[in-house]
């Protein structure tokens, strides 16, 4: 078997809990991720699904090492990056890119689109042929070249998210974290962005972790799914297996709670009384 791109064992992350911060002194730590084990096979798209508080975004941030885990290990291409200090991490960053949920806040309002896409290129020794590379990045996500000189506020939501994708893929990374990248968009735009990501992931052989609360979107895009709840993995399996034959009650509840766009008079009926 081929070695997975990511191999995660016993991953724990604890963050300061600001709601319990005393007036003086530090906030106590709260364990957000409580020991996760999983692999991300090279070239696969993995959906990470869960409700608020499940820890799915924290998991994403730990994978690209915006957070340092408190226990366990993260191996990227066989190399342990769990506690790599920032300076040693920097050469790895090129392969660990991220697309953000809110395309508004992920683009600096005072920089042109060209300058936003150029930043990671310059920082990673790809500052030559900059114009060409920016043009290529824009072309890849289907944006006209004239957008290079524009600012974020001159773009629509969908166009902003395209810029976010262009920036993340400009370095031809091995891994991309997509954190709820369509949840702020209208359905019609959502479909465009997902089709784009689907196409690019296949073309570039990307490994993608696709964080979402929407199981419908995940089924379309992902080859395997990790269902999370309260910092633990509830169920992880190949997509079709999970949807056709969910093993855990929680997964079934999640699926049953999705309002599909079709008439179903029974959907809102109170659930049959649970046996006492």
């Amino acid at each position: 078997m081929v070695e997975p791109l990511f191999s995660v064992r016993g991953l724990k992350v604890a963050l300061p809990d600001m709601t319990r911060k005393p007036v003086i002194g530090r906030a106590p730590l709260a364990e957000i991720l409580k020991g996760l084990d999983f692999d991300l096979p090279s070239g696969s798209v993995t959906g990470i699904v869960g409700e608020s508080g499940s820890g799915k975004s924290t998991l994403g941030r730990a994978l690209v090492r915006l957070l340092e885990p408190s226990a366990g290990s993260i191996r990227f291409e066989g190399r342990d990056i769990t506690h790599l200090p920032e300076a040693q991490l920097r050469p790895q960053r090129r392969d660990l890119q991220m697309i953000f949920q809110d395309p508004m806040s992920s683009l600096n309002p005072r920089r042109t689109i060209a300058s936003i896409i150029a930043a990671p290129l310059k920082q990673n020794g790809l500052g030559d042929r900059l114009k060409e590379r920016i043009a290529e990045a824009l072309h890849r996500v289907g944006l006209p070249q004239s957008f290079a000189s524009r600012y974020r506020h001159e773009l629509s939501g969908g166009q902003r998210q395209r810029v976010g994708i262009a920036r993340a893929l400009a370095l031809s990374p091995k891994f991309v974290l997509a954190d709820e990248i369509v949840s702020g968009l209208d359905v019609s735009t959502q479909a465009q962005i997902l089709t784009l990501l689907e196409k690019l992931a296949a073309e570039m052989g990307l490994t993608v972790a696709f964080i979402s609360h929407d199981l419908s979107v995940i089924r379309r895009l992902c080859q395997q799914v990790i269902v999370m709840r309260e910092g633990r993995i509830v169920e992880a399996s190949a997509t079709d297996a999970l949807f056709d034959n969910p093993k855990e009650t929680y997964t079934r509840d999640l699926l049953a709670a999705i309002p599909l766009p079709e008439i179903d008079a029974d959907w809102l009926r109170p659930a049959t009384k649970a046996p006492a």
Partner: protein
Amino acid sequence: MSACLDIRDLSAVLPNGQRVLRSVSLSVQPGEVRALVGESGAGKTMIGKAVLGVLPSSVRIVEGNMKLEGEDLGKLQPKARRTLIGARTALIPQDPLTALNPSRRIGPQMTDRLVRILGWGGEKADTRIRQLLDEVQIRDPDRVLKSYPHELSGGMRQRVLIAAAFAAEPRLIVADEPTTALDVTVQKQILRLIAELQREHGTAILFVTHDLGVVAKISQKVSVLYAGKVVEEADTAALFAAPEHPYTRALMAATPRYTDPFASLMPVDETVLAGLAAEIAAADQAWRRPHG
């Protein structure tokens, strides 16, 4: 039977003359749920605000009328209008956190409306609120009434707001994306609650949402909006059985369905958007002619 809410040819403009509502007509019968569905900028929230009389000051209604249980809102004096709207309508807002004052306890915030607008006594209001909290399945009303908003979960806060909305027995409730901020499992519970209370109290609801899935589950009638224009209106069952307008069809095809992943999430066709743009332009042209 007269409609609970009847909107005829409602047009509203921004200061620069751009129309944000384009001759909107719709009605909500007593005890009926009408969904207003559309993407951002469709004007669905604007209609809800117009009904409640809380449009932003930059938006001006230039034409059309709104009748609440037969009373023409445009013909009333501002004060009479406020009283009428206050007594017969209520709002279930999108964000349950910002809709509640963070520095006041839940109890007084819930009874306020009953005491101030309807002139109820404190005790009567309190009894009523407790009754409603029971209806929204809040089992420990004492704790909830004494809590501050941040001490409750998102789902609990939305329950509180639903209870408050139904407490004064309004004839019409405007629900503005009431479940958008919630997780799916909580959304289902909340939708179920709204449907139940709506049936029991016979309240009419104008249900604003962007989610066709929610439309299918909660409403009997639906108006599909685009750029402030009603592009299609139908019985919900009929709409899902056979959507007529190309935009409605495109919207349905774009909505993800895990049961059918490869027939959903279809990007909207350029020709559909071009057709919509032409339709809007023609409507504006026709509207401008008599208005010079």
